[in-house]
């Protein structure tokens, strides 16, 4: 696989643009899961502009790397990212959440160009990723499958079923990225249902674990993805990336209220100004 030659600075600029697009899309949509979309934005940009072997002009090319947004409610980050990458015009995002739109709160693979998997119900994506990786190996395909999970999602028991299977079947073609922003709808993950020692859980399940102290720092994001792509173990790789929910917008950062919310034009202007300063 040939990673694209894109600089960290360029990726940072693209992440800024994606964050603005997320704000704009949330305004068009009326409301959205904006907090988790902002925390995941840097990984989404790095994957789609540097690491994933994909071609927006050929969505179904058989050897493409697959991406599954297991935290499907971050579609308001994922779908604008697909648009930014060139799968469809940004103008189409104006329909987001509206009647008959292909784009809603959770991504639909039969309607969203470039979307490999419909998601939304938490705890499903990693199992589907396991199936894709098993299928790829059986058919001697070398593509990778990347699954992005939320940390709150890791309360779901099915995540651990999939973790077990990925190690058992030695799925070194599987990369899980956990957007560890520390918040879920009802509060801090450690208050609602404690996940720590979280990275140790993945290690105990036999995964090759990469811990990232700042998953909103593009250099660290790229370093972790380089490491994941160069996985020379026979184990699946998990990137546990500490991020900030609502990253980039002063009034949203690390505030559980911004798991889901509406943005008026005044708030949007503040957000754009904040993002510009990143």
């Amino acid at each position, binding site marked *: 696989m040939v990673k694209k030659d894109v600089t960290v600075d360029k990726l940072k600029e693209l992440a800024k643009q994606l964050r603005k697009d997320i704000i704009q899309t949330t305004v068009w949509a009326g409301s959205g899961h904006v907090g988790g979309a902002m925390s995941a934005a840097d990984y989404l940009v790095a994957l789609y502009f540097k690491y994933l072997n994909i071609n927006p002009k050929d969505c179904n090319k058989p050897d493409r790397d697959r991406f599954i947004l297991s935290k499907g409610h971050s579609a308001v980050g994922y779908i604008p990212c697909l648009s930014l990458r060139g799968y469809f015009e940004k103008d189409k995002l104006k329909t987001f959440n509206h009647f008959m739109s292909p784009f809603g709160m959770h991504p639909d693979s039969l309607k969203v160009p470039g979307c490999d998997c419909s998601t939304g119900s938490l705890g499903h994506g990693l*199992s589907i990723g396991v199936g894709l990786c098993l299928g790829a190996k059986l058919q001697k395909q070398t593509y990778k499958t990347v699954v992005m999970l939320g940390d709150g999602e890791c309360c779901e028991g099915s995540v651990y079923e999939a973790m077990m299977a990925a190690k058992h079947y030695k799925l070194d073609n599987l990369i899980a990225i956990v957007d560890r922003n520390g918040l879920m709808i009802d509060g801090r993950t450690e208050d609602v249902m404690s996940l720590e020692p979280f990275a140790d859980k993945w290690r105990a399940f036999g995964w090759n674990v990469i811990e990232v102290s700042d998953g909103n720092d593009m250099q660290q994001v790229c370093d972790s993805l380089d490491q994941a792509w160069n996985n020379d173990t026979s184990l699946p790789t998990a990137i546990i990336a500490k991020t900030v929910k609502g990253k980039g917008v002063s009034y949203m950062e690390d505030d559980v209220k911004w798991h889901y919310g509406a943005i008026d034009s005044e708030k949007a202007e503040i957000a754009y100004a904040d993002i510009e300063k990143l």
Partner: protein
Amino acid sequence: MAEKKSTTGTTWNCYDANTMSAREIYGRVLREMAKTNDKIVGVTADLEKSTNIGIFGKEFPDRMFNVGIAEQNLFGVAAGLAKSGLIPFASTFAVFACLRGGEQVRTDICYQNLPVKIIATHAGISFGQAGSTHHCTEDLAIMKSFPNMTVIVPADGAETGRAVEACMDIDGPVYIRVGRGFEPPFHHDQNFNFEIGKGEIVHEGSDCTIITCGIGVLQSVIAAKELKNVDGLSVRVINMHTIKPIDKDIIVQAVKETRRIITIEEHNTIGGLGDSVAAVIAESGKGCAFTKIGLQDEFSMVGYPEDLYSHYKLDSNGIAETVREIMGKEFEEDEDWEDEV
């Protein structure tokens, strides 16, 4: 046994329908199909042996994935395998397929219209001694409510074999419901019609029609023969092996010609075959005497299957009794039938 040409183009003579369980025939047919179709893979959750998907797995170990006792993962993995371009056959007990892994079946498989073939065994009350935790009298209600899903209940092993072949022609998810043990076969050779979505009249009659599936087919035909000999009644029996899409024409024809309809199913009478038939009758606008036999919104008891079938009136004696009851029922005569149908 006569050699037959399957809908998928494979030809074989791999089993004796008179001596094998439906599960065993499933495993053998899948193994034979897999010899000529390398897209077929198997997935199970620690039930390779119990569901007999292991017969395929033994011949093709690289294409058989056992995820352990983890049914949510089972159906998620099946969805992923399908997304990679394969045709997964996923087998577990019916109760776990529709309930423990039900959301994955709905959201991962049906919502994305993926070609996952779910062959669920130990359905209904066929695992008699195991009780309600392992019985499944809700699966038809659940599976038929999922868009894109085709739902099939074969009458016996031979028909299971045909259903397993035919489901390859459906470009989407299919649910095939199989019992546990060696239920006596209805078909004694493979010379019978089987088309998904088409009910079959397996016993002609004009006084009353029994619409049934699964084990009910053989028992209803035995009952129909007895009713003819003892009571002089002419009872039609329809093998409605496809619950969804339901064959509306054969139901309306039966209403028109016999005016008395009984449904027999190894399932809760809420949500299963009976309700599908009732909806077709109601939409036709025609009145008839109508009775649904099955579990009457109750959890099943423990016991040997034959005792349970007898208790729930799913055996030939119980079915004959139900027919005699319905023959005494009144229904509104409709003089304009010919004009409206």
